[in-house]
């Protein structure tokens, strides 16, 4: 880890400076995380009146529970769906904006603001548009003969949450792709054009490979987003239904812990999530540090 070659000398000042950050970290991050780990080895009644140690029982029950395995599967589908949709659309839009000279700023402005809309709020909007009785989309879909019913069909519900979650994330990916595209030297593409490569070929042989660091970074960020930051989206729309078909892991932790009051199981799920986050962060960190070296 790097510092300055020369540093200030002071005995107490650095500790004072770092103390607020450390205190908050310890009290609100490390301590609760430790508690989650402890609680995952216990079984406790809702009111906390009696506690028994049960070893790995909560974990065993978890991985034998078809609901949990289903939530794992749902999370994978959901994460891939959101990532593919928001990355794909964002890349398309970024490529289009990259062609624009005069109108690029206007389009960018028109495309970035959904980032500012809270997932809970966009969830309510999408829920409203897909409301089975008065929603505009079920109405249109019925006209073309598709019986849209996200209250009953798991696939419809999944499409709905993927749409709502992607909507928020597109602008973020878009900005990164635009920045990535701008950093590709124009001379490279011009050279290829002179060599007679068409736009499609140029995209596949030059643009996409040169964008790959950005894409890789966005992949990780979008995985984290879809897995952890979409709680509000699910809560405002399907609440995990129908029949658990949109019950992603984070939502299940909340539901089993706060609604179901099954604290042992909920903590065990938290710990599993913790490991997933750590793995993703290590990947991301490796990438960040590599970039910093340049």
């Amino acid at each position, binding site marked *: 880890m790097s*510092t*300055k070659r020369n540093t*200030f000398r002071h005995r107490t000042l650095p500790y004072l400076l*770092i103390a607020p950050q450390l205190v908050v970290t310890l009290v609100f991050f490390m301590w609760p995380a430790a508690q989650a780990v402890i609680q995952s080895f216990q079984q406790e009644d809702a009111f906390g009146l009696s506690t028994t140690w049960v070893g790995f029982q909560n974990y065993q029950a978890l991985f034998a529970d078809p609901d949990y395995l289903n939530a794992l599967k749902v999370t994978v589908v959901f994460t891939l769906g959101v990532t593919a949709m928001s990355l794909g659309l964002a890349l398309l839009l970024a490529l289009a904006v990259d062609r624009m000279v005069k109108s690029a700023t206007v389009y*960018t402005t028109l495309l970035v603001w959904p980032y500012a809309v809270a997932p809970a709020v966009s969830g309510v909007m999408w829920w*409203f548009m897909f409301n089975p009785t008065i929603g*505009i989309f079920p109405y249109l879909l019925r006209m073309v003969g598709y019986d849209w019913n996200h209250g009953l069909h798991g696939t419809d519900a999944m499409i709905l949450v993927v749409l709502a979650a992607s909507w928020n994330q597109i602008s973020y990916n878009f900005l990164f792709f635009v920045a990535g595209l701008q950093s590709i030297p124009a001379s490279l593409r011009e050279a290829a054009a002179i060599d007679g490569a068409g736009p499609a070929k140029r995209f596949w042989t030059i643009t996409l490979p040169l964008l790959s660091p950005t894409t890789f970074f966005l992949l990780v960020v979008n995985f984290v987003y879809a897995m952890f930051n979409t709680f509000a989206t699910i809560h405002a729309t399907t609440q995990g239904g129908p029949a658990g078909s949109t019950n992603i892991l984070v939502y299940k932790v909340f539901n089993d812990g706060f609604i179901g009051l099954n604290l042992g199981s909920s903590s065990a799920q938290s710990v599993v999530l913790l490991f997933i986050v*750590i793995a993703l962060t290590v990947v991301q960190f490796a990438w960040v540090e590599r970039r910093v070296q340049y």
Partner: protein
Amino acid sequence: MVENRRFLNILAHLVLILGVAFVAFPVYIALIASTHGQNDFLSGVIPLLPGHDTIRNYSAMMTQGLASSGAPPLWLMLGNSLIMALSISIGKIAISIISAFAIVYFRFPGRMIAFWLIFVTLMLPVEVRILPTYKVVAELGMLNTYAGLTVPLIASATATFLFRQVFLTIPEELMEAARIDGAGPMKFFWDILLPLSRTNIAALFVILFIYGWNQYLWPLLVTTGTDHYTIVLGIKRMADIADQQPEWNFIMSTVVLAMVPPVLVVIFMQRLFVKGLIETEK
């Protein structure tokens, strides 16, 4: 070749217009819904053209709220959201910049441990450790207070990290010069570091303001009374009423009002926001 390029340009415009439409459509629907009366929703389909109840809906929500749905007047919730967003963004920037200063410009025992302790918090989204964090906050007596709403969210490694990167790019000579002039560390911090990181602070502010404004799960748990509700939370409460119809016109006017401040921040500070976004993640 020329024809081809023209076709591609038209295609690009088309893609962008469709993209903008996709992005704007939900908001258009929300806007329209907020201009109608309650009865326009009962049968058939969402109206697509504006109605006549705009002023009635918005003024009712601003002044009274839906008290019966547990939603206080909007100005109160907007105020709470503003307090939350500002405390989180200012608090985060303040504690991060000084800890980054300590990490970069000092060498002291325990420095590495401190750095790693802060860094691992990157790994723990609030959703994952929600129950135990709730318990800690409750035991500190911070339920339903502004402190409880904000303090647990102001520690984040992201901001510390960003400032660390910024400080690392500041030339060594500046510090040498300061030392030769006999300036102490705090003077160096105020007179040189702070002004040099001004743009970064502003950019980070935009991002964190949005982060704070849009919090949902945490306020949902920590507020036990309507006096501390934030607007994002209030919307969900209104949409969730048992035994009767959601009052979509009121919900959607709240949705619109909840979107306005952060969206304005993004639009008017777009350059800073983009810079902030891309730098934070580097």
